[in-house]
C-alpha cells in the first residue's frame, strides 16, 4: 500500500472524533485517526521524522476500527497505523521484554504451553497475593483468568475424532483458546461434530501473528503466516476459528504479503477463513437444542463486527440456544482490551472498560456473551473489578451446552 496516497484521501472532516473511544477519553488530536493520518502523511512526505512522540501517538490506537466505519473517504486507518509502527520498529527496534515475547515466545506453541504451566504454578502457589502487594501490579494482576489445568492442545490428544458426513473443516486454534479457554475449543469441536462435520484441528499452526503485526514485527509475522498457511491441507474448503482478532488477522494475510510471491497463496487461505458463528449459520444444519432460557447480553468484538462484518450470526447462535438477548447500549464500542493495550495503557483502558461495564450492568443480564477471547478476558476483569461478577461465554459455548443437553435428554 502507498501510505502517502492513502493518507491523502483524508478530508479532515473529523468524523472519527465522534466514535473514537480514545479521543472521547482524552480529547487530544493525537489520539484520533485524523491526527495519525496527518502524521503518516507528513512522515511519508519526509517533512518529519518518526521519533518517540510519533511512536506514542501510533501506539495510542485500539485498532477498534470505529473510525473506519464512519470515515466518508474510507481511509484504511488500521493499515496506516500498522504500517507506521512497522517503520518505527525497523528504525528504532523494541525493548527487551517485547522482543522476547514477540520474537521468541508467542510464535512457538510449545513455549506458550510452558508459559501456561508456569502461570498455573504461579496461581496455585500463594504468589498472586504477594504480587498484588506491588502497587503498580495490584490491579493489573487480576486480568489473568484462572489458568486451566490442561491446554486445549493437550486435551485434543485424548480426544477421538469423529468422522462426519457433511465434509471436513479445519479448525484454527487461537493461543488464548489453547492456553486460557480450552472449553471454547472443546465447544467448537462438539458443535461441529454434532452438526455432522469432521474437524481437522490445525495442530501444526501457530499464533496468527496479529501481535507481531501490531508491534511492527512484520518479518516475524510473515514467517508465522507461512507456517499457518502450510498447516492447512489443500482439500479443505473452510477454516473456522473462534477468536475475532485471529480471524481478522488471518483474513488480512493478503495485505501482509502484498506484492510478494506468496500473495496468491495468502488470498486462497484468507478466502477460506470463517468465524465459527458465521460458519454455523451459513453452512450448517444446526439441530434443535435445549432451551437454556438464560438472559444474556452480547458484546460485539471490534474485530468481528467491524473487521469481519459478523454481527447478526452470533446473535442467531444465542437465539438458537434459547438465550434471551438483551441488547446493551453501544454493543460495538471497544472494551479497551485490544490485545496488549489493556496492560500497556492500563489507566486509559480502564476508563473505556468502565463504560462497558456500566452498559452491561444496565441490561440486567445474567451473563455476557462475546465472540473474542481477548474481549472476554478484559470484560471478565472489568466485571470482577467493578463488583458485577457475571460469567462471560463464547456464543459457541452456549450452543454446545444447549445441543449436548438435548442429546442427553434423548
Amino acid at each position, binding site marked *: 500500500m502507498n501510505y502517502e496516497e492513502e493518507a491523502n484521501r483524508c*478530508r479532515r472532516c473529523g468524523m472519527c472524533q465522534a466514535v473514537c473511544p480514545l479521543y472521547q477519553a482524552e480529547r487530544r488530536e493525537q489520539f484520533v485517526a485524523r491526527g495519525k493520518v496527518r502524521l503518516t502523511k507528513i512522515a511519508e512526505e519526509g517533512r518529519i521524522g518518526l521519533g518517540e512522540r510519533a511512536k506514542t501517538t501510533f501506539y495510542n490506537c485500539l485498532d477498534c476500527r470505529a473510525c473506519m466505519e464512519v470515515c466518508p473517504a474510507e481511509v484504511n486507518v488500521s493499515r496506516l497505523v500498522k504500517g507506521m509502527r512497522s517503520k518505527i520498529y525497523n528504525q528504532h527496534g523494541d525493548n527487551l521484554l517485547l522482543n522476547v515475547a514477540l520474537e521468541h515466545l508467542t510464535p512457538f506453541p510449545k513455549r506458550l504451553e510452558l508459559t501456561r504451566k508456569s502461570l498455573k504454578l504461579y496461581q496455585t502457589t500463594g504468589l498472586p497475593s504477594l504480587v498484588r502487594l506491588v502497587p503498580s501490579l495490584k490491579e493489573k494482576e487480576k486480568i489473568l483468568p484462572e489458568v486451566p489445568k490442561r491446554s486445549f492442545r493437550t486435551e485434543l490428544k485424548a480426544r477421538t475424532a469423529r468422522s462426519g458426513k457433511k465434509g471436513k473443516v479445519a479448525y484454527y486454534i487461537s493461543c488464548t483458546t489453547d492456553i486460557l479457554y480450552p472449553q471454547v475449543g472443546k465447544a467448537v469441536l462438539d458443535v461441529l461434530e454434532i452438526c455432522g462435520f469432521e474437524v481437522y484441528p490445525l495442530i501444526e499452526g501457530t499464533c496468527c501473528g496479529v501481535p507481531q503485526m501490531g508491534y511492527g514485527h512484520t518479518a516475524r509475522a510473515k514467517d508465522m503466516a507461512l507456517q499457518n498457511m502450510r498447516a492447512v491441507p489443500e482439500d479443505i474448503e473452510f477454516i473456522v476459528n473462534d477468536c475475532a482478532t485471529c480471524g481478522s488477522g488471518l483474513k488480512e494475510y493478503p495485505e501482509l504479503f502484498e506484492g510478494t510471491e506468496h500473495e496468491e497463496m495468502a488470498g486462497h487461505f484468507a478466502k477460506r477463513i470463517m468465524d465459527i458463528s458465521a460458519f454455523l449459520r451459513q453452512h450448517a444444519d444446526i439441530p434443535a437444542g435445549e432451551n437454556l432460557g438464560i438472559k444474556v447480553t452480547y458484546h460485539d468484538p471490534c474485530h468481528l463486527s467491524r473487521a469481519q462484518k459478523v454481527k447478526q450470526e452470533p446473535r442467531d447462535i444465542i437465539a438458537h440456544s434459547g438465550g434471551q438477548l438483551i441488547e446493551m447500549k453501544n454493543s460495538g464500542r471497544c472494551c479497551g482490551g485490544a490485545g496488549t493495550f489493556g496492560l500497556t495503557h492500563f489507566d486509559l483502558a480502564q476508563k473505556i472498560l468502565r463504560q462497558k461495564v456500566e452498559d452491561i450492568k444496565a441490561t440486567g443480564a445474567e451473563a455476557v456473551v462475546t465472540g473474542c477471547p481477548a474481549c472476554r478476558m478484559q470484560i471478565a476483569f472489568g466485571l470482577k473489578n467493578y463488583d458485577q461478577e457475571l460469567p462471560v461465554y463464547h456464543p459457541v459455548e452456549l450452543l454446545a451446552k444447549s445441543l449436548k443437553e438435548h442429546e442427553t435428554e434423548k
Partner: protein
Amino acid sequence: MNFQAFLQVIQSQTIEVQCDPQDTSCFAYDASNLESLPGAVVFPKDTQEVSTILEAANRFGVPVTPRGAGTSLAGGTIGIAGGVALSLTQMNQIMEIDEENLTAIVQPGVVTHELHQAVERLGLFYPPDPGSMKMSTIGGNISVNAGGPHCFKYGVTKDYILGLEIVLANGRVIRFGGKNIKNVSGLDLGSLFIGSEGTLGVVTEATLRLIPLPETQRTILAVYNNLDEAARTVSDIVRNKIVPATLELMDQESMCLIERVRPANLPLDAAAAILIAVDGPTAQVEKDMKLVETICLHNGAREVRLARDDEEQEKLWEGRRSANGAMSQNCKALVVEDASVPRSKLPEMIRKTKEIADRYQLPCAVLGHSGDGNVHPHLLLQELTNEEWERADKAVDEIFRAALDLGGTLTGEHGIGLVKKKYMNWQFSPDTMDLMRVLKNTLDPNRILNRDIML
C-alpha cells in the same frame, strides 16, 4: 515576538503544553484545505489557565489561535505559523442543567451533540445542529454563530446564548448575561463576541437557553422535476403558517452521488428533492403533515414519501447524511461553500451556481437549507493540479459575486475564516470595514488573537 519567553512562562505553570512538531503537526489543519504549523499547542484546564496563556502571549507578542474540534470549513482555526494553538478540548464539562430556569452552563469544549443528548434525556432541547455537531464544540459554535437545519424554525446559536465568560487578549476575564431571559442592562456584548471567530476574545464558559423537547417529529421527502416547483413549495408551506423544523434540499447531482455510494432509493432523474421535517405536539404534527403533503403535490411534486415511524424517518435522513461521504469518495478534494441568499432567491442562486461550475468545468453538487436560503455548493476536484485549483478559485469568486448581487451574504454558518477573507471588501463598505477593525484593535491592540482570520 518572543516565543521562548512566552514558553518559559507557560512551562513555569502547570499548563499542559506540547512543542514537538510530531505533536503540533496534529493541530496544523482543520476541515478546510489550508494548513499552518503552530510552534506550540496548549491545553488549558480552566479559565485561569486561559487567562495566564493570553496574558503571556500578549506580553510577548505571540499570536494565538483558539481551536475546538478543528472542523472549520473556512480555515477558522489555521493560525500563524510558529504561533500558539489554544486547544479548548480539555474544558469539556457540562457544569449545570437547570430544569427550573431552562438553562445550561457549559465549558467551551463540550461537544454539541453531547449537550443534545444530556438535555434531551431531561426532555429539553438545544436546537442548533450544525452538520459537524457530533464533533464540533459549543465554543466553536459560538465563535461562528453556527446554524444547521433546525435554524429556520428555531434560530441560530446566538438565539440560545444568555451569558458568556470571555478571556480578553490581555488576559482579563469578563462576564456578562446570565440566567435572565430579560436583560437589557449595559451594552449587548453578546452580539459583539458571538460570531467574532476568535478575533476578539476566547469563550471560556457559556450560559445557554434551553426549550422543551418537541413531542414528535415526522419527515416527508418530496421529489420534483424542477427547482422552481420545490422553491414554490417552500414558500407555500410558510404562507400556510407552518414552520417546519427543517427544509433540506438536495439537487440531482447530490442524489446521484449518494445513490452511487450508499443506495437510499433516491430518484436519479429528478431535479431536486426536499426533506421536510415537522415537529411539535403529536396531534398538531399529524395535521401539519397532511397539509404539507397536499402543498407538495399541489406544487407539482411528482412523488411524496412520508415516514410513518422513527425507523422510516431514519431511513430518509440516512441518504442526506451520507451526502458528504458520497462526495468525498468521488473526488480528491472537496471545496464546500456556504453562501446565503434571501429565501425567495434560492432557485436563482442554485441555477447561477451550477452555470458557473459548468463554465469552469467543475462537477458541482448543491445541498441547501431551503427554509433559510443557505446554499452549500460542493465543488468536486479530481486532479489537484494548480490549473484545477485556479479554476476552483475563480468559480468560487463568481459564486460569491452572484450571492452578493442577489442581496445575499458570504457565509450563512461556516464563518469567514481565512478562506473568505478576501471577499469581505466585496460585501462591506470601507467605513464598515474600518469600524470592524477599530473594534478589533481596541480589544486586541497587539493583534495576537486570530490575526489573519476574517479582518
